[in-house]
């Protein structure tokens, strides 16, 4: 039920029947690219909207409510404004690097969503090293951040970029180790197989406490990797005005802004896929009536529902906690998260070895 594979197959076979293999390949790639870009833009805009509404509600405010019903078109209006704004060029800035930095950041986040499985058969590429690919690509964004900070020729930007570098390099470890836990359980790095391994229960339930610990660590480290509060030191508003993107304006600023939200989406989507069963519905053990009802909800809704929940938790963090200081940030990683995740990985390996997980 709700399998996208036949639809996609019929599309490719249609292309193959009517065009030469070269053109068929090209057209399918272009249509895929357009679809992903559209998805990217719409999702990015509505994540911004969602964040504004969530924080408004937490802060006893209304949030956007002017443009469109309930302010639904507010972020689109903002985007148009940002597109029309002047791009400010900084004297003495390294203009090549300055201009390329936002593209590196945004390309990294676009490429990461390419291999996320949204539903059965709805995945651009199902790499056999899917997790590694996403991890590698999404950490490329920090290069863009570093370049942006360096090329801006601004002291605030440099401090922000250096902080970001230190932060991402350290937290990459915890993210990797936490993901490794799920990979150990599933025995594969292919995302579709990881989902298939959760057919009889999500890893967060099947993996006892260590899986839950790994999930929490992943959530914290993932939040840190996206440079979001309470780990938003790179753009610490009260210290560095806007950190690494202080000097950017117009659409280039929008790229950074969108990339932040899309990175958050990627982190949440990965958490969903690895720990929360991806697009699989929620099943109660042997409770067939309930399970059948759950099956009727399309996998796309399951996937986006779970992702939205994880994103909500990350927003909840941001709008509650004060920001850490740089040394505390690193201490949290090296003194707490890393030892715990190493220990956790050891436990999980043992569990898997003994087949003690459900």
């Amino acid at each position, binding site marked *: 039920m709700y399998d996208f594979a036949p639809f996609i197959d019929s599309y490719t076979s249609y292309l193959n029947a009517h065009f030469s293999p070269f053109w068929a390949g090209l057209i399918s790639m272009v249509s895929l690219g357009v679809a992903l870009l559209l998805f990217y833009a719409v999702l990015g805009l509505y994540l911004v909207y969602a964040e504004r509404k969530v924080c408004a509600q937490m802060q006893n405010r209304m949030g956007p409510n002017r443009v469109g019903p309930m302010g639904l078109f507010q972020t689109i209006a903002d985007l148009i404004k940002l597109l029309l704004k002047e791009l400010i060029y900084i004297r003495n800035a390294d203009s090549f690097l300055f201009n390329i930095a936002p593209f590196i950041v945004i390309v990294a986040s676009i490429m990461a969503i390419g291999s996320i499985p949204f539903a059965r058969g709805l995945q651009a590429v199902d790499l056999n090293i899917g997790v590694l690919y996403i991890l590698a690509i999404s950490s490329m964004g920090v290069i863009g951040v570093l370049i942006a900070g360096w090329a801006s020729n601004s002291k605030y930007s440099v401090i922000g970029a250096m902080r970001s570098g230190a932060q991402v390099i350290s937290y990459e470890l915890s993210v990797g180790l936490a993901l490794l836990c799920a990979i150990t359980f599933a025995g594969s790095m292919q995302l579709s197989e990881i989902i298939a391994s959760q057919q009889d229960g999500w890893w967060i339930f099947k993996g006892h406490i260590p899986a839950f610990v790994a999930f929490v660590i992943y959530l914290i480290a993932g939040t840190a990797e996206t440079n979001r509060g309470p780990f938003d030191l790179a753009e610490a508003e*009260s210290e560095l005005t806007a950190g690494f993107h202080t000097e950017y304006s117009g659409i280039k600023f929008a790229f950074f802004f969108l990339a932040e939200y899309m990175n958050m989406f990627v982190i949440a989507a990965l958490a969903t896929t690895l720990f929360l069963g991806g697009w699989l519905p929620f099943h109660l053990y042997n409770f067939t009536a309930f399970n059948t009802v759950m099956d009727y909800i399309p996998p796309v809704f399951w996937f986006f529902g779970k992702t939205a929940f994880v994103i909500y938790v990350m927003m909840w963090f941001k709008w*509650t*906690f*004060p*920001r850490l200081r740089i040394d505390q940030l690193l201490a949290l990683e090296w003194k707490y998260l890393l030892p715990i995740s190493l220990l956790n990985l050891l436990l999980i390996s043992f569990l898997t070895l003994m087949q003690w997980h459900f």
Partner: protein
Amino acid sequence: MEETLLDIDLKDREEYIINMGPQHPSTHGVLRFETCLQGEMVKYIIPHCGYIHRGIEKMSESLSYPQLVHLTDRMDYLSAHMNNEAVALCVEKAMEVEVTDRVKYIRTILAELSRIASHQLWWSAFGMDLGALTTFFYGLRDRERILDIFEETTGTRLIQTFITPGGLMNDVHPNFQKRVREFVTYFRKKLPEYNQLLTGNVIFQERTKGIGYMSKEVAISYGVTGPSGRGSGFHCDIRKLAPYSAYPFVKFNEITATEGDTFARYWVRMQEMSESLDIIDQLVDNIPQGDYMLALKAIKAPKGEFYHSVETARGELGVFIVSDGGPNPARIKYRTPNFSNLFVINKIAAGHKIADLVAISGSLDLVIPDIDR
């Protein structure tokens, strides 16, 4: 220190200078910290002020006493009532008159309300400085209720010009007592929320404890008063040392802490809020009847010099009037709390990280117009 920063040969290329302000999210107003950094560490800070210098002392020389009161609102705009009260009390002391008990009670209630309002705004902004963005809205949400009380009685929300030599501009609104009582019950319920959200938070405690240590000697030598000074164990509460208005009639504690760090200053302010609620509680039900304004022929200080200080939300505000006997002062000097509180920053923030500088300057609770006047 004769050389300015531009003259310093930056032989050590690791050092560089950034400007915090005059337009910077963490300096609440137009103040510039010329900050020398080495990596993330602050080496020294040179505060530059004067961006909002309006010459209030000079202007006041050509205004009569009731007229110059309205300028004091614009110094420390968050303790407008206390500033007005300082001038009013100093002029009354010079004229050797005493206002009715009703006026004293109302003045004290208004002063304590604005102390709470000021601390609420400080709490909001302090949370913001540390990156907890939600505190700002909670603080302002509760402060709004105090401003409503002020607006109903005085007609304005921030700069009231309500307390004037000889009494008050007009009598309080009939709803005043009811609304104040409502507010006290409301805010007693909301105050624990502040502590849950920020005070107890482990990140917040890590960010503030042991940061920006100021010893008692330093506080006294620099003249750091108010909650900032009391956080270092400096007993400087004018309300206790030289009680004025209705403070002799109420029981309250002077909140002091001995740690002297950012958290101590924070803690003192949080305690002061509930202490102020207690003071209001004792006064609001017993406001005596009487006139709100003394029938004075002319408000003129006799020849001589007069000094009076009050405790504003930020410390000791002293008013020094030199009078030649006319309706205008020959010279009026405001010893403002923020002026003295500001300059200790180099002493206590040097050697910390730049993020701590933001926390420390937030914990000193600076209002810039009060420094520049």
